[in-house]
Every structure is written in C-alpha cells, then in structure tokens.
C-alpha cells in the first residue's frame, strides 16, 4: 500500500472499525492498571496493586487451576478423537462417511444451551444422584471441540498426497507403522494447532459449563459469579486483561504453527 491509500475512505473505515473491535479489550487492559475501585474516567493513576491482589485471591486461583486442568484434559481427548476421525475421513471412503461428517459438524452449529441441557439430562438420567463436576463439563467441552480438531487436521492432511504413506508401505512399513512414522508427523503442526484451539475454547467456555458444573468453579463461572459484587470489579478486570493478553499470544502462536510448513506459502503475504 502506498501513502495515498492510507487516506482512502476504505482504509479509514477499516481503521475505525478495527479500533471499535480493539477498544473494549484495550480499555480492560488500561483499567487493570488504574488506581481506583470504580471503573470510571478520569483515570486515577498507575498501580500494580490489582495484579498483587490477584495473587492472593484463593478462590480465583482455584478456578484458574480448574480451568487449566479442564482445558488440558478435554483438549487432549478432543484432539485425539478429532485426529483419528480426520485420518479416517481424509484417507478413506467408507459407507456412512457423509453421514458421519454431518453429525460430527453439528456441535459447531447447535446452540450451546441445547447441548448443555441435553448433557445435563443425560447425566441425571444415568444416575439422579451423580454429582456434577469438572468431569461432566469436560465431556461437554470434548463434544464442542471434536469438529474443530477434526477439520483442522483433515485440512492439513488434504494438503499432502497419500502417496507419501503408500511409499512408506511399499518400503515395508505396516499400515500402523506408517501412521506413527509418516501420517502423524506430517500432521503434527495441525494437531498442535487443534490442541491449542480446543484449549482456548474450553478455557473460555461458559454457556455449556454453566449447566454441567457442580460446586467447583471454572474461571468463566467464577468471573460470572463475581459480577454481582461491584467492589470485586477491578480484580475481574485485571484477570480479564491477563486472560486477553494470554489468549492473543496463544492464538498468534497457533496461527503461526498452522502456516509453518504449509506448502506453497507466498513470501509476500506476511
């Protein structure tokens, strides 16, 4: 783009809209450093005390720990199941393949409230006294993340001809040996990218967790419960700022991974 383009109506509109998209996030970060209990202008001065208070907030740290464990565990399962399905649909044609694709894509479009209540009913039908827990939330998160993991890995596999695998088998590897030593290594960047995408989704997930959580708390559930207390708002904002920054870093890393080794990336693009 030349300098003249920066003053074009198109670019000015782009810049304004982008500012609109970033403004709420930047405001959260700005107010996490504000030395005042209320979230109002004018700013009161710079402080790090909210960050210090965060470190002492026991329940909050518990919720953070729960979210990390939940995110890791549910993403490992979702990524493993999604990868198996991706290899199946990318490398084989079988009866029921398109029916499977239709069902596997559904969690992406079903409203989360429907998924949440359906799983709640399932768990209570199996055992009315069964306590809800992080386990039940995890089941929901795996269902949500299978389609995304599957699509990310399948699109990576579609970029490579199956003849690499055929060559390995011609050279004497068994099918499963080929899977371990060719197919999975080829897919590795996409598998990691699918894992990170599942993790960020799980870490942020509220609509399904709300129905399936018991007495424990995840970070979004904890944040929601704190909204009723105005005096807790600065802490909520500070935590929000930290999570925002963390998730941007993870997303940029995941996107970078997805592009690394992508065949025929044009140099001028980035």
């Amino acid at each position, binding site marked *: 783009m030349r300098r003249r383009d920066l003053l074009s109506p198109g670019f000015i509109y782009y810049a304004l809209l982008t500012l609109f998209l970033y403004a*709420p996030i930047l405001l959260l970060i700005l107010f996490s450093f504000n030395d005042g209990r209320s979230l109002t202008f004018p700013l009161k001065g710079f402080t790090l005390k909210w960050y210090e208070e965060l470190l002492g907030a026991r329940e909050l740290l518990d919720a953070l720990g729960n979210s990390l464990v939940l995110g890791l565990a549910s993403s490992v399962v979702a990524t493993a199941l999604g990868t198996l399905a991706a290899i199946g649909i990318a490398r084989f044609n079988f009866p029921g393949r398109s029916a499977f694709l239709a069902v596997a894509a559904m969690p992406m479009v079903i409203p989360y409230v429907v998924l949440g209540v359906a799983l709640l009913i399932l768990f209570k039908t199996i055992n009315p006294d069964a306590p809800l827990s992080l386990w039940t939330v995890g089941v929901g998160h795996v269902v949500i993340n299978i389609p995304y993991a599957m699509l990310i890995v399948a699109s990576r596999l579609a970029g490579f001809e199956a003849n690499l695998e055929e060559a390995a088998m011609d050279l004497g590897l068994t099918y499963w040996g080929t899977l371990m030593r060719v197919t999975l290594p080829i897919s590795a960047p996409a598998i990691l990218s699918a894992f990170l995408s599942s993790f960020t989704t799980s870490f942020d997930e509220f609509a399904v967790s709300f129905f399936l959580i018991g007495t424990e708390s995840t970070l979004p559930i904890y944040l929601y419960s704190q909204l009723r207390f105005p005096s807790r708002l600065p802490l909520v904002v500070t935590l929000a700022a930290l999570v925002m920054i963390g998730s941007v870093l993870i997303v940029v890393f995941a996107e970078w991974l997805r592009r690394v080794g992508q065949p025929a990336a044009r140099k001028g693009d980035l």
Partner: protein
Amino acid sequence: MEHRGRIAVLMTPPVLWLVLLFLLPMAIMALFSFRAGTFGAERDIFTLEHYREFFQNAGFQRLLWQSAVTALLTSAFSILLAYPIAYFLAFRARSMQLTLLTILIVPAWTSYLLRILAWKLILGSNGLLNSFLLSAGLIEEAAPILLYSRAAVVVTLVYVWIPFVTLPIFSALQRIDRSLLEAAADLGCAPWEVFLRVTLPLSLPGVVAGFFFVFIPTLGEWVTPSFVGGVEGTMYGNLIQDQFVRALNWPLGSLMSLVMLILVIVQIFIFSRVVRLSDLAGV
C-alpha cells in the same frame, strides 16, 4: 478388506463419543419433553401436557419471535458493517491484505465472555461510556446508555460477529474473476453499476453464508442477554435456561430446547440449499 479393519480402528472412538455423548443426549432430551415432571413419581408419567402449554402460551411464542427479530437485526447490521471492510480488503488492500485481515480477526479469537463483560462495563450507568461523556462535558448526568435493552444485546453481538461475517464475504469477493469487472467497465458501466450488477450479485453466496453464521448462533444466545439485556433484552435461550435452573420444569425446558434444535436443523437445511443454488448461479 484390510481397509475395513483400519477404518474401524480409526473411526470407532470418535463415532462412539459422538453417538453416546451427543446424539443420545439429544434423543433423551426429546423423550424428556413427554414426562409429567422433573422429579419423583411424576417423572415416570408420560403426557402431552407440556406440548399443550407450549403451543397455547403466547408468551413463549412471542419471545421466540422476538429472538428471531434480534437475530435478524444482528445479522443485518453485522453484514452492513462488514461488507465495506471485506470489499476494501479484497480489492484495495493489495500487499497488505493478509496482514490487515489478521489484525481484524485477532479480537475474535480472544475470550468471548470477557468481550461481553467489557461491553457491560462500558455501557453501565457507572460505566466507562458514561463517565467519559460526563468528564468530557458532553452529558449532564449519568444514565445507563443502552444497557439492559434489546439494543444493547444487538450492539454487543454485532461487535462479536463482525470478524466472522467479514471472512465469508471476503472470500466470495476474492473469488470474483477480475476480468468480469473490466469487461463491464469496457462495456460502459459506471463504477456503481459494475458494483450493483456484477460485484454484489457475485458476492451474495458470501453474504448468505455470513447471514447464517450470525443468525443461527444468535437465535440460541442466552449468555449475552443475561449480561447486557435486562428484562427487555431477554431471549428464548434465557427461557430454556430458566426452566432448568430456577423453574426446575425440565420437561417443558426440554420441549423448548427441542423446538430450538429443530429450528436450527431447518435453517441449516435451507442454508445448504440456498448456498449451493447461488453458487451455481454465480458460475
């Protein structure tokens, strides 16, 4: 034949998970809508009572209708705001295209819940927008601007969806053969005629995709309205949530949820038809 074993090993775990923990719960939910009550003996009686209640209660239907209107407004505003961005990126941004697109998309990947939270804080009567306007001398006294209204729900959701709508429109515009635009200009079309008669029709598949991307999930929203919507902004999703959390009428809630599920499936069916048709029309 050896393929069959491989397919079985690869596909059995994901198929089992989706059947037992996705399809089965939906089926149990559908059955639950026939139960008389949530707990105890009532639970084992089957009845059509909730169906009667649902279809006779005008309040439920009104809320469903209002949610559809909210979803429609959200989709329309998202498309209107996103289209010029997509057009700019596809036709004007040149070498900066991918960078500018990435910058636009990054906020969409940050926490959805926290961005809604940010809007609640911005719109509130002790909130950022008010105090900013007050200290700038633009208003005299604090009042909740927008908060706890349907407008607040629409504004917040439009904010959330803009990047998601930009993508399909952008890729539809990218696919347009540039020589068609030159041909139209050579044949005497003014720039706005080229846009209205060539570019816009050819980008419609992307617009339709963007519309459904927003409309379907917005129809089932319950988190955003419970943050910023107040009583006026309540949506059908909140009604479902309420049956499970407060009213504890699970059978009725299951029925409402089932209605939502069927509506979504119908929309996806329509979507798959419309987009394929317009793709054909575009060739």
